[in-house]
């Protein structure tokens, strides 16, 4: 049961090996993986939209969509048909090449990242030995596509929303990358498979989230990941009440569907990466490994949707202040604590790391307190 998909792929390869020559085996294997990802990505995105709508609806004391199909399960298909049949409006002044290429270039990195996620035991599509760096590098190319989208639309609101979105993504990339460094230190490898296997043993207490530096790194990575996806509470660049719709104002129909798809696929990959790096990946006692991975990822996606349903939006200066003045110094101290974890004995290192991290967290919250004006007293003539 655990090796269900691996055996399935192997049997497909054997079947194909009857017809095809020897050298095509590798290409067929890659094609099967790519086909699986190309099917998995959009299907996950579709059902994530449904999950979000229903969960946010329940949090707002209403039922989400439930007309189309039982429990609204066919709603994403209806949404897909709607988006496909909408008219594709292009502004007259828009730069045609840039306007057309932007949605494509924003979906490509979102799909490319699926190649290094370990979906289960031996179920990574490509086991790169720099897998984690590949994830970070590819997801940082999204900024260029956002620039193209905002510039190509020739719209002041698009430009403003695009600039804000890029500023947010660039600012939150740095704590995200630096918060992963303790994990690399502990697992001593950049390959995602090796990182998952370094968290094995001890009935799950070896997961990096249960160590003090790992917990801080988990929180920082998850928050920065939520900011990278432009999701609430960091969705200033694309919230409807703020700036029309930010950089994808001028897009309609299938192109908007591509932007929407990229956002949800990014949310899925960030959750999947958090599970891989901190929560032990596909490890778990009884159920098959891919089922554990799916359960853990969906828990994190539920937490992302929970954030959307409950937290108010951050203002742009609060957003940037959070990244540069709070998360970044905390990640530096986290790297220091994680490095010194390996040089002290067991009781010393737990207490000292919790102490150092707690004190620094308190210091940074004190330093980042907003400026409160003193209360004014009005002497009114009676």
């Amino acid at each position: 049961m655990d090796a269900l998909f691996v055996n399935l792929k192997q049997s497909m390869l054997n079947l194909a090996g009857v017809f095809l020559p020897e050298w095509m085996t590798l290409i067929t294997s890659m094609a099967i993986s790519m086909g699986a990802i190309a099917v998995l990505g959009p299907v996950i995105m579709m059902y994530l939209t449904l999950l979000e709508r229903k969960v946010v609806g329940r949090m707002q004391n209403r039922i989400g969509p439930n007309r189309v199909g039982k429990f609204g399960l066919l709603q994403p298909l209806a949404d897909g048909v709607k988006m496909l049949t909408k008219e594709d409006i292009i502004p007259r002044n828009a730069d045609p090449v840039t306007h057309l290429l932007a949605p494509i270039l924003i979906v490509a990195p979102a799909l490319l990242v699926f190649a290094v996620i370990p979906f289960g035991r031996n179920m990574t599509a490509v086991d790169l030995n720099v897998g984690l760096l590949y994830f970070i590098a590819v997801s940082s190319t999204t900024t260029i596509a956002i620039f193209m989208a905002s510039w190509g639309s020739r719209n002041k609101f698009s430009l403003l929303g695009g600039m804000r979105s890029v500023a947010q993504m660039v600012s939150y990339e740095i704590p995200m990358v630096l918060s992963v460094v303790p994990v690399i230190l502990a697992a001593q490898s950049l390959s995602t498979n090796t990182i998952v296997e370094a968290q094995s043993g001890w009935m799950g207490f070896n997961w990096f989230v249960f160590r003090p530096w790992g917990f801080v790194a988990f929180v920082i990575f998850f928050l920065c990941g939520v900011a990278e996806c432009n999701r609430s509470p960091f969705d200033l660049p694309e919230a409807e009440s703020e700036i029309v719709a930010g950089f994808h104002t001028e897009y309609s129909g299938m192109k908007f569907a591509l932007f929407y798809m990229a956002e949800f696929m990014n949310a899925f990959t960030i959750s999947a990466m958090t599970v891989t790096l901190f929560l032990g990946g596909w490890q778990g006692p009884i159920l098959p490994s891919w089922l554990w991975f799916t359960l853990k990822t969906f828990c994190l996606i539920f937490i992302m949707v929970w954030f959307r349903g409950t937290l108010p939006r951050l203002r742009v200066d609060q957003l940037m202040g959070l990244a540069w003045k709070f998360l970044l110094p905390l990640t530096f101290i986290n790297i220091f604590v994680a490095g010194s974890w390996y040089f002290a004995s067991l009781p010393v290192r737990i207490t000292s790391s919790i102490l150092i991290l707690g004190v620094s967290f308190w210091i940074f919250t004190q330093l980042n307190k907003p400026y409160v004006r003193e209360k004014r007293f009005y002497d009114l003539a009676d």
Partner: protein
Amino acid sequence: MPMLDLLVKFGIYAAMIISIVAAIGVVTLRSLFHAALALAAVLVGIAGIFIALRAEFLAMVQILVYVGAVMTLVIFAVMLTERLGDKTVQQNNQQSWLALIGIVAFVSILARVIMQAPWPIQPQNANFLVDTAMLGKVLLGPFVFPFEVISVVLIAALIGAIVVAKGDRK
């Protein structure tokens, strides 16, 4: 397998040709934004060549630093300094034909020399796996002094860029 090698070679040559075409686009496109996007394409092509040369860490660093950060900077600068009439303004100066002749001569002489020089190729290097741990050891071993100096350079560049671009506070 010779067929797979052929496909890989085709891929590497395709990356090279795409990089060269995009580089020609960088220097000739009229709109500066399109030139910046062509530069991003060149950088991705060069990262592909790095992967062909089995330098994966460097390829990922190239994409992360160049395409992720430097291109963002360049495009911000392009957007902030755009002039309205730039579409009709000619963007090559009078030296274009002379420069073209000069660089064609340069490339042909250098290509001839390269093809004829006896390069001392060490065959054991071809399959040597250079992983990140080895690069880290070299950076903190023989190359620790340039490593520290470059951190100072980056701090200086950071502070300098902020101070220069900030402008005067009235």
